[in-house]
């Protein structure tokens, strides 16, 4: 076997050096599907690329795509997706993991940068599933936020101690704020670096936050029940809103058809019937543009579940951006313009309003030339042909309702902050009643009492404050949360088979992820489950598990190296790589 390997591996290495996409060794981990990175061609560009201001504040470094190799040799490699590997090695190519295995089993590429840590432990980059990193006090106290607010727009790099979470091995984080608002915005997934952060492409709006708690202040259960039941009203008129949007879209299509007929009629009348109508080409182009969006499956639902809104009818069309009606292609408009100008007998030298000739804008000189031709008294006004259609009225746009509709469609998870048992029950009832596909319960301190319900509904849980008596001193009768034990909750959820992540909650506590996981181990959670709770499970909850969360081939090279076992108090961070780039290295 050994001889076969000695022949086989160099042979494979040669082919690997020539074909850079072929692996040199079989990764021992499971889940190494080798799937290509998720397509994002139809998705909007990352804000760091779109918005110069955001790019500046992020401090993101620019650089070409690197394809060089980096090798990490360490005493123990913990892939998370598989058992630990003694004397392991991780090979990184560019920004992705190329292979992992045991030293001696993999033939390493020559002239490669090698990090050697004979006593070190290698783990995937840690993922904080809930934090307020890169937010300032103003944003954290903004009660005017609603479900349509995009937290990503308010993130800032201040170079403070709390911003340097990368030094603690946090390579991915979900950022949200806890204001007093019932719907405190939409959280974002960020990738911290040593000089800023980058927003995760396509995850700037990663989830909708919903607050279903009044905190630990004294309150009567009936009062809480009344308040919690009122939360359901947020979802009540979404169907009506959706119907309005759909009606508008139908009206818009009808308008386009009618207007085309209208133009065709006048084109024929002016003896230009042989001219190719503009609409077919434009409509075809438009259809081809709209089709991918319509056929695209719902994103953000890794398990493929969809709410009732997603069953029995085609997916909803995305509303046009910026409050403008859907635009035709330039070719279609050229055709339309030419046809229309031919109808009115003028050269197509003036730009025409996208929204069609139905809107009279006397102040606009661009339209003023076209106006006399459509006035009553002209040749067309005496015609018996189709009447000029009226442009449909666009319903008022409501970003919160848009976001909640995405929640109902399963495109966005709903992250509900609920602490007490009755709050958690109300949250689960909301999920059941509204058929919300993706629900994440945050700070679910009383979750041990409703584990069966959580498991039945398929919700996931993000736990914070997992430290001894972090909520209240033992025996503190004035604090309603003294009865909760956040350190034993992970074990209880794990026993019930509920996916959960351990999260920092605040920027400063993000650095405490390993210690919080350690505290959970001290209360019965198996070590492997604790490691998963700060790596792979949060990646799954955030919908980025295909890219990060474990040391698996083709995933992003988010790798940390510690001086000892991660959960030991005296373990030091030695090296942090994010997408293969060295973000922190202990001196």
């Amino acid at each position: 076997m050994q001889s076969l390997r000695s022949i086989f591996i160099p042979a494979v290495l040669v082919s690997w050096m020539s074909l850079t996409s072929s692996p040199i060794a079989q990764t021992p981990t499971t889940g190494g599907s080798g799937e290509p990175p998720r397509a994002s061609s139809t998705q909007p560009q990352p804000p760091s690329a779109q918005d110069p201001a955001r790019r500046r504040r992020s401090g993101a470094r620019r650089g070409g795509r690197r394809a060089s190799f980096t090798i990490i040799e360490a005493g123990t490699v913990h892939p998370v997706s598989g058992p630990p590997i003694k004397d392991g090695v991780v090979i990184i190519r560019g920004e992705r993991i190329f292979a992992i295995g045991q030293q001696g089993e993999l033939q390493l590429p020559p002239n490669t940068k090698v990090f050697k840590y004979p006593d070190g432990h290698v783990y995937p980059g840690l993922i904080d599933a809930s934090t307020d990193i890169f937010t300032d006090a103003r944003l954290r106290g903004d009660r005017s936020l609603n479900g349509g607010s995009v937290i990503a727009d308010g993130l800032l790099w201040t170079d403070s101690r709390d911003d340097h979470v990368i030094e603690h091995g946090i390579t991915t984080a979900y950022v949200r704020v806890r204001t007093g608002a019932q719907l405190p915005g939409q959280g974002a997934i960020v990738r911290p670096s040593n000089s800023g952060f980058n927003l995760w492409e396509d995850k700037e709006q990663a989830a909708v936050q919903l607050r279903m708690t009044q905190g630990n202040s004294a309150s009567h259960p009936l009062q809480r029940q009344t308040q919690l039941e009122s939360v359901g009203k947020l979802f009540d008129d979404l169907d009506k809103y959706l119907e309005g949007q759909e009606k508008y879209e139908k009206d818009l299509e009808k308008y386009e058809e009618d207007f085309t007929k209208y133009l065709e009629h006048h084109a024929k009348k002016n003896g230009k019937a042989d001219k190719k109508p503009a609409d077919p080409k434009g409509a075809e182009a438009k259809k081809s543009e709209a089709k991918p969006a319509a056929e695209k499956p719902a994103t953000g639902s890794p398990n493929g579940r969809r709410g009732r809104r997603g069953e029995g009818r085609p997916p909803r069309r995305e509303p046009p951006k910026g409050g403008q009606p859907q635009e035709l292609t330039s070719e279609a408009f050229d055709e339309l313009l030419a046809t229309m100008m031919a109808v009115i007998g003028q050269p197509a030298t003036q730009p025409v309003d996208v929204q069609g000739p139905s809107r009279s804008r006397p102040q606009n000189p661009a339209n003023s030339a076209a106006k006399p031709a459509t006035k009553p008294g002209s040749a067309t006004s005496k015609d018996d042909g189709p009447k000029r259609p009226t442009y449909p009225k666009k319903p008022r746009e409501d970003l919160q309702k848009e976001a909640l509709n995405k929640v109902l469609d399963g495109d966005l998870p709903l992250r509900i902050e609920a602490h007490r048992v009755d709050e958690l029950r109300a949250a689960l009832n909301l999920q059941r009643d509204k058929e919300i596909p993706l629900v994440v319960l945050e700070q679910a301190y009383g979750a041990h009492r409703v584990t069966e319900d959580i498991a039945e509904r398929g919700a996931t849980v993000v736990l914070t404050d997992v430290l001894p008596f972090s909520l209240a001193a033992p025996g503190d009768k004035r604090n309603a949360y003294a009865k909760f034990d956040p350190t034993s909750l992970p074990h209880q959820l794990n026993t019930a088979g509920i996916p959960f992540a351990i999260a920092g909650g605040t920027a400063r506590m993000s650095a405490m992820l390993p210690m919080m996981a350690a505290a959970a181990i001290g209360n019965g959670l198996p070590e492997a489950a604790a490691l998963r709770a700060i790596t792979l499970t949060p990646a799954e909850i955030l919908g980025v598990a295909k890219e990060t969360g474990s040391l698996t081939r083709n995933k992003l090279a988010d790798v940390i190296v510690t001086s000892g076992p991660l959960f030991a108090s005296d373990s030091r961070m030695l090296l942090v790589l994010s997408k293969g780039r060295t973000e922190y290295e202990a001196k």
Partner: protein
Amino acid sequence: MQILNQNRTTGALLLTTLLAVPTAAQDVLVQASKIIVAYSTEAPNNMVLKDSALLIRNGKIAFVGADIPAEARRAARVIDYGNATISPGFVLAATTLGRDVDLGEGAIAFTPDLLTADAFDPWLEQLDTLAPAGVTSFGLVPSARNVAGGIGAVGKPGLEQGRLIAPEVFVGFSVSRSARNQERQPTSLMGAHQMLRESFTEARDGVKIGPDLAILRQVMSGQRPAFFYADTFAEINAVLDIGASFNFAPIILGGGQSERVIEKLAKRGAGIVLNTLSPMMRRADLELPAKLNKAGIPFCFAGRPDQLRLSAALAVRNGLSRSTASTALTRTPATMLGQQANVGALRTGCGADFVVFQGDFIDLSARHIATWVDGKLAHGASAKQAMKTRNTNLTGGR
């Protein structure tokens, strides 16, 4: 007695041995794969026993490891904690157990001769929180509201009630903001400083002094440790000046800004009782234990007992060594309280106060299995069962 029946030929010798081991039926033999008899600030100096045992008799450590007589070992009730680690119980250097009002005489600022023991309630609910946190003994300090608050005591929690093992141990002083009151003297730090200086001067030089100044004389002669509440630079400086003037080494309670006077602290031989650490603290506060240790200043932690382990773990995370952090929870506070012969270690003659963890308690991943106080199980999942069963092998230790 069974041994006697089985082997009559050994007669007098065995009988002598058994008589020398009074009430052998009460002995408890506690076994574990690792027993740390005493911590030291230097890891190699930790006294560690592998696969060993402790023999508990009358609430105290009677024998340790190989010193346990074979007869006593056979006759003892065995508690086997398997591969767990037994360490000395934690010593909470200073606490008021939430009885701040009862431990401070508000009308008079200078009451060094009051006894905190007089205000101790053995059935206090706060005592029930100590054993689950691993605390097996505590220093009961006077309130910070008096410049000279009184004489502190040392106590222990228990399964049903607490008790004081030393009612008059140290003297509690305060120059903190709490000690200043606009309705009586002193109203300022200067006033508090002056009050202390005059009192110590009178105690040193006076020919005929009362019981209150006699307490100060005991402080100056080293008979009683002196604990001072002081947090800011000015307060700590004032206390160090008093100590230097009257030739005693103070122990600072709080010492939040002690980093600024770290050289002076070391020079005066002062000790620090730090407040428990929190992850939300400034980095400088979290690194303070390591800096104090580097300067050779003895320190320990006080505050919420349930945060002691976390404080030690945070200190280790920020540069302190494991052994020093462990010492700061056990031997150092015992020494500060002058009770090193009784608590803070598992040497022969010390109280049988220990904690059992699955691993090193400095790691939060170590599971807390049990706490024993005075040879009795004060906290633990199978505590009562363990005490009733002979030759028990606790599942919690495996």
